[in-house]
């Protein structure tokens, strides 16, 4: 469970997150909102890239914000990026092994764990292939494999389906939906593709201009008037 309390982030005069308070219970939770709503900023706070002006985040009883950013991965925070960041020079195996060797798990099970994570994503490529030879969809799956390896506690997926064709998106949805049961982690999915969010997330929260405007069961949230107004820009 992730409890966010009064989280505020300011960049100069811009308030990117405005006293956001929210609880993510379990499973895969959606986080949506128009561009600039503060979704990626929220992820950046959880990853430790951005220091909030105020607020607290308790993740499974631990004060996440007091942890050094590089230690969070060891504790169990994983993330993917809006613009995919699979390391091109390394093989698929090494991309995933890189996360495993900085996790809480020892080296004895590394090879098996890494191959298991790659298999979990259903990536159809030899693990020894260099990532630079892979297509966009395959690279996204490498990122997901990195996110599920080494016993994660919190998996942050930042628009994992951006730019993917429908067939690959539905495969990705299938993989994302199975992350909590496979790893025991809580997953938070940020995406603009509502069909992906509906397919993966039981609950969804909506941000607009840094403020939380709705949260609850996904179907209800997507019918919410405030949410429709935020997306369509109706006054």
């Amino acid at each position, binding site marked *: 469970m992730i409890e966010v309390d009064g989280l505020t982030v300011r960049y100069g005069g811009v308030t990117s997150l405005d006293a956001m308070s929210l609880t993510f219970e379990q499973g895969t939770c959606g986080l949506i909102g128009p561009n600039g709503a503060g979704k990626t900023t929220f992820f950046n706070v959880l990853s430790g890239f951005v220091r909030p002006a105020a607020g607290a985040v308790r993740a499974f009883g631990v004060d996440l914000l007091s942890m050094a950013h590089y230690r969070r991965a060891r504790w169990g925070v994983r993330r993917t990026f809006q613009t995919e*960041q699979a390391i091109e020079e390394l093989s698929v195996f090494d991309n995933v092994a890189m996360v495993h060797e900085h996790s809480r798990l020892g080296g004895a099970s590394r090879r098996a764990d890494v191959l298991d994570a790659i298999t979990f994503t259903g990536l159809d490529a030899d693990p020894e292939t260099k990532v630079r030879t892979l297509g966009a969809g395959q690279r996204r799956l490498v990122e997901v494999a990195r996110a599920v390896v080494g016993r994660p506690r919190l998996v942050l997926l930042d628009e994992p389906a951006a730019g993917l064709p429908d067939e690959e998106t539905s495969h990705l949805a299938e993989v994302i939906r199975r992350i909590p049961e496979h790893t025991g982690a809580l997953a938070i999915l940020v995406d603009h593709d509502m069909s992906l969010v509906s397919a993966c997330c039981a609950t969804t929260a909506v941000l607009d201009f840094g403020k939380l405007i709705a949260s609850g069961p996904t179907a209800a949230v997507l019918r919410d008037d405030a949410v429709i107004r935020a997306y369509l820009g109706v006054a």
Partner: protein
Amino acid sequence: MSGTVRATLERASPARIARRPTRPQLIKASVTTVLLLFAFFALPELLSLYYIDTMTQVAVYSMVTLALGLLVGRVGLFSLGQAAVLAIGAWAAARLLFATTQPYPLVLLEAGLITMVAGLLIGLPALRLRGLYLALITLMLAGSITVVLATVNFPNGGHGFLGYNGGLLHIPPIRRPSIAASDPAYYRFSVVIAIVMFALVLAHIKTKPGRAWAAIRQSEPAALAAGINIWFYKLWAFALASFITGVAGGVLAGAIHYLYSINFPTQDSITLLAVTLMGGVFSLWGAVVAGLLYQFLPALLNNWGVSADWLIILFGLGVLQVLTTAPAGLADQVPRDLRRLGHLLGTRIRRFRRGPGGDGA
């Protein structure tokens, strides 16, 4: 589970992905072994003393460009202070060689470690900077070290901490290992040390630090998200590069017997970066090519009676050529072009054999 997922799961079963050396890997390993055996056994028999000494220098500077290539190519750190780091290694080794009777390899290890500490002291504040600023700071530091060395001088068998005596009439030469007193033997010794240093780097880039460096070079956020302590791994790269350059300095000390601060001008650091880029920073062979460019080419020109100053112009053009047409350097470009040439010749020969007008039908 959807059909696609299940199908791909079956295709990616662990049985299919057992680790086995591929054919190109085997070819690469055999070519490397043959070249190393040739360099070790045949080369000193074939070359004159002039070129044997040159090849010793090539071994020394291959280690220096190996270290610089590690920083530039693997981690993305541009250092313009390598000539000064080399000088520190040579100084420390010379001091230890005059002061003690320790075996030469032990002195090399110690000189490497001393240089590593010095490199870390330089690296610690410098690592907060990146790109051009890091290059500038390391260049200025190299300049300061050159000034200091010009004042304190290299040890020449004198007493005291600095080991320098300006009044000595007969300066003793810096000793060599007893098993490698002659020039060909010392060449072989330096090749062995270089192989050890290359193996050290290879052991790094194939394992945890290599993966961390690759991540840092492409994307620091991705590295952080993977739990990589960026600062620590950059410092590690700096430490390793300084250690290797220090060891190279130690080998250089025995190779030339007498050290003077004039041997280590600051601008050498710039030329070293140029040849490192030309050789190629993404492959270990690039360091060997860079070492040849830096030491063998000037020796060749000298032998032909052409001024080595022309090389500065040639290196300038070379860097331009490499950066525009082959970012991975000559170590990547030459084999690739040779493969293309072989392919082209093969096609021509096959066509010729079929005979004019005989379309092979």
